[in-house]
C-alpha cells in the first residue's frame, strides 16, 4: 500500500477517513487543529460529502457527533485538552448512553503548556467516564489505532477516548496506509431507550456501562496495542505509556534490557501489572502527563519504595518527558553539550507586524490610562499576547469566554470601569451566554470584540462569528446605539480612543467591535486572489 510522510495529526485524520467516518466535528485548538484541516483538504471528504466544517465550540461539536452515532454512522470529534472541559457534559453522559455508530473522541493534550493554560491529562477523563482510552506511541500506530478505536466503539457500544500529546500530534514520520472502507448506512440502535437518559433508563444504562468494564480491560490485554516485553535485568521493570516508550527505547538503542510493559490502550491490564511488579525489584512508571496509573499502582499510602515515577521525584512532577529525563531516571550518563551562551535571550511569541490587535491595544491603553491597572479582562487567542510588553493591556486570561463573565462579576463587585477583550471566534465559542447575563443584569461593562474575522492563534480557521457579531449582540439585547464598530488602524487612533472612552463611561452594557482582518489570513487571501486571477 501507499506510504506517506504524515504528522501524527495527519495520520489520525487519514486513519479516520480510511475507517469510514461520516463526519469530523471540532473546534480549533493546538495541538489538534491539523486533524480537521487535513480532512477538509482531502479529496475523499469532498467526494463523499463527509462533514468537516468547524463547530462553534467543543460541546456543540461533540453533541453533533453523538447525533451521528445515534444514526449508526461513524464520527470523529477533535479538540485540545481544555476543550474537553467545555464538552464534559456530553462526554460523560455519552459514556452512559453508549454509542451506536463508531464514536471516537480525539483529545490532544499539551504537557509543558506549549500553547495552553494548563497541562491536564485527558486519560483522567477516560477513567472518570469509565470508557476505553487509546494512546499511540508513533504515527503508524496512530493511523492503525484509529480504525481499531472505531471498531471497538461499535463492538462494545461505547465512545472511545483517543489521547495524543503535543509531540505525537506534531511529529512527522512514514505511515503505511491500508485499504479504506465506506461509511456505515443509517441504522438506528435496536434499543429505543439508549439515548433517553431519563433516570429510570440511565440507571439501567449505567449498570450496562459498569458491566462492560472487565471487557474493556480484556480488550487492552488481547488486542495487541499493549505488549509485555521480557527482559533479563529484573532489578527494574518499566511501564511505559504512549510516547514515553520511545524515550525509554532511545536510551537503549531500541533494546531495553529490562522487562517493559508497553502501554497504548487503557485500562492497563492488571495481569501484566501484577507480572511486572512480581518479577522486578522496582518498577518505574513512565507517563506523559499526570501520574495517574502510578498513583493507582503505588496506592495512596505506599511507602514501600518499589514504585518509581513522578510522585517520588524519579521523574519530574510536571512537564513533558524527553529522552534525557528518562536517562536521568534510569541512572544513565548525561550527554548534554555546551551550555547556552549568556547572550541568548528569551524570544517570546508576539503579535505579528501589522496585526489589528496591536492598534486596538494602543488605543485601549490610552482610553484606560486614567483608571490605572486591573480593569481589563482578557480571553484566549492571539490577543492574549496583549498581556506581554509593550502592551501590558490585560489583567486576566482564564478560559474561553471568561473575559465577559469575569468583567461582569468584577462590575457586580464594584469595579468601575470593567472592560472585557475577546476575539470574534471566542465570542461565539462561549462569550454569548455571558453577554446575555450582563444584559439581563444591566451590568456596567464594555465588551470589546476584536473581530479579525478568523480563528487566528491556531492558524486562521473560519470563525463561526463571521458577519454576525452586531446581530448577535442586538439579539441578546445590547442597545443598538451602544454597539460601535471601529477600524483599528494607526490613522484612526484618536477617533478610536474617543469612541472607547465614550462607551467605557456608559453605565450599561456596551460593545465595541474593532474590525480588521488578521494580517496572516489577509496575506493568504491576497495570494489566493492573485493566483486565481492568473489562472
Amino acid at each position, binding site marked *: 500500500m501507499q506510504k506517506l510522510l504524515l504528522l501524527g495529526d495527519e495520520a489520525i485524520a487519514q486513519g479516520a477517513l480510511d475507517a469510514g467516518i461520516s463526519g469530523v466535528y471540532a473546534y480549533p485548538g*493546538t495541538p489538534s487543529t491539523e486533524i480537521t484541516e487535513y480532512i477538509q483538504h482531502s479529496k475523499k471528504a469532498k467526494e463523499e460529502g463527509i462533514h468537516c466544517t468547524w463547530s462553534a465550540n467543543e460541546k456543540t461539536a461533540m453533541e453533533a457527533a453523538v447525533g451521528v452515532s445515534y444514526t449508526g454512522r461513524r464520527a470523529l470529534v477533535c479538540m485540545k485538552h481544555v476543550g474537553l472541559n467545555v464538552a464534559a457534559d456530553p462526554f460523560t453522559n455519552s459514556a452512559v448512553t453508549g454509542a451506536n455508530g463508531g464514536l471516537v473522541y480525539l483529545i490532544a493534550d499539551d504537557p509543558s503548556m*506549549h500553547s495552553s493554560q494548563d497541562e491536564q491529562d485527558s486519560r483522567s477523563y477516560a477513567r472518570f467516564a469509565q470508557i476505553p482510552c487509546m494512546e499511540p506511541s508513533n504515527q503508524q500506530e496512530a493511523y492503525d489505532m484509529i480504525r481499531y478505536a472505531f471498531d471497538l466503539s461499535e463492538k462494545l457500544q461505547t465512545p472511545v477516548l483517543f489521547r495524543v500529546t503535543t509531540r505525537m500530534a*506534531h511529529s*512527522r514520520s512514514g505511515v503505511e496506509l491500508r485499504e479504506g472502507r465506506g461509511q456505515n448506512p443509517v441504522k438506528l440502535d435496536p434499543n429505543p431507550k439508549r439515548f433517553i437518559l431519563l433516570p429510570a433508563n440511565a440507571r439501567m444504562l449505567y449498570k450496562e456501562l459498569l458491566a462492560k468494564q472487565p471487557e474493556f480491560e480484556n480488550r487492552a490485554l488481547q488486542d495487541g496495542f499493549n505488549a509485555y516485553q521480557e527482559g533479563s535485568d529484573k532489578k527494574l521493570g518499566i511501564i511505559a505509556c504512549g510516547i514515553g516508550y520511545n524515550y525509554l527505547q532511545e536510551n537503549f538503542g531500541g533494546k531495553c534490557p529490562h522487562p517493559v510493559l508497553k502501554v497504548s490502550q487503557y485500562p492497563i491490564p492488571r495481569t501484566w501489572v501484577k507480572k511486572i511488579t512480581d518479577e522486578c525489584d522496582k518498577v518505574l512508571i513512565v507517563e506523559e502527563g499526570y501520574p495517574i496509573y502510578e498513583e493507582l499502582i503505588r496506592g495512596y499510602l505506599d511507602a514501600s519504595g518499589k514504585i518509581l515515577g513522578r510522585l517520588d521525584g524519579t521523574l519530574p512532577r510536571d512537564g513533558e518527558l*524527553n529522552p534525557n529525563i528518562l536517562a536521568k531516571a534510569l541512572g544513565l550518563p548525561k550527554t548534554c*553539550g555546551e551550555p547556552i551562551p549568556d547572550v541568548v*535571550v528569551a*524570544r517570546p511569541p508576539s503579535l505579528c507586524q501589522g496585526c489589528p490587535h496591536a492598534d486596538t491595544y494602543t488605543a485601549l491603553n490610552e482610553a484606560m490610562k486614567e483608571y490605572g491597572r486591573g480593569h481589563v479582562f482578557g480571553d484566549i487567542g492571539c490577543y492574549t*499576547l496583549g498581556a506581554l510588553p509593550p502592551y501590558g493591556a490585560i489583567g486576566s486570561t482564564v478560559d474561553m469566554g471568561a473575559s465577559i463573565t469575569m468583567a461582569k462579576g468584577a462590575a457586580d463587585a464594584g469595579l468601575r470601569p470593567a472592560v472585557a477583550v475577546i476575539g470574534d471566534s471566542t465570542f461565539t465559542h462561549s462569550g454569548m451566554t455571558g453577554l446575555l447575563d450582563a444584559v439581563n443584569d444591566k451590568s456596567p461593562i464594555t465588551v470589546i470584540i476584536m473581530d479579525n474575522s478568523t480563528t487566528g*492563534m491556531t492558524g486562521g480557521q473560519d470563525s463561526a462569528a463571521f458577519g454576525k457579531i452586531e446581530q448577535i449582540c442586538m439579539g441578546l439585547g445590547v442597545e443598538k446605539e451602544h454597539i460601535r464598530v471601529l477600524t483599528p488602524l494607526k490613522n484612526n487612533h484618536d477617533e478610536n480612543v474617543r469612541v472607547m472612552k465614550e462607551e467605557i463611561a456608559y453605565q450599561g452594557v456596551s460593545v465595541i467591535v474593532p474590525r480588521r482582518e488578521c494580517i496572516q489570513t489577509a496575506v493568504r487571501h491576497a495570494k489566493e486572489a492573485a493566483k486565481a486571477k492568473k489562472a
Partner: protein
Amino acid sequence: MKKDIILAGVGGQGILSIATVIGRAAVANGMYLKQAEVHGMSQRGGDVQSHLRISTEPICSDLIPEGKADLIISVEPMESLRYLPMLHADGWVITNNVPFKNVPDYPSDADLEKAMKSVKNMIAFNADQLAKEIGSPRSANMVILGAAADKLGLPYEEFEKAVAAIFAAKGEDIVSANLKAMASGREQSQK
C-alpha cells in the same frame, strides 16, 4: 547512516521548508525519518525549532537527546546558539548571520559575534546577501541548506532532486532559483 539535525529560527522564517527538502531526499533514499515540529503559539514571532532525524535504522524518539545532534541548521544567529546543549562535541553549526531583532534586549553585534566565535565548528555567513546576489532574495533558507548539504550524509544530487520535486508545481523558474540558492550556499561553505 544516521543524522540528527536541529533546525532553528524565528516563527515565520520558514525552517520547515529546509526540513521538507532534507526529509524528501532521505525518504527517497529509503531512510527512516522522524521530525518534531512547532505549531501554535510560538509560531507568532517566537523562537522555533524542529528536531529532524534521518536514519537507515528505525528511529525510537521523536526528540533528539541532548548532546547528540550532528548539526544545528539555523536561519538566525542568536537562535543558532540557543540549542548548543543539543549539539554533539564534534557537531557543526551552520547559520545565517543576519539577526532578526524583535526583542528589546537582543545582544549587541559584538557580543553575539564573540559568542559565535567560541563555537568549535561553525559556518556563519550572510545568506540574505547571497540570496540577493543570485536574484532571489527570499531563498536565504535554501542558501543555508546548501551550506549544510555536504554534512548531511547524502549525495548532493539527492537534494537537487528533492528541490525539483517539491517546487515543481510552482514552475521551472522557482525550481531553478532554489537550485541556484542551494548551490551558492554550498560554494560558500566550501570556501
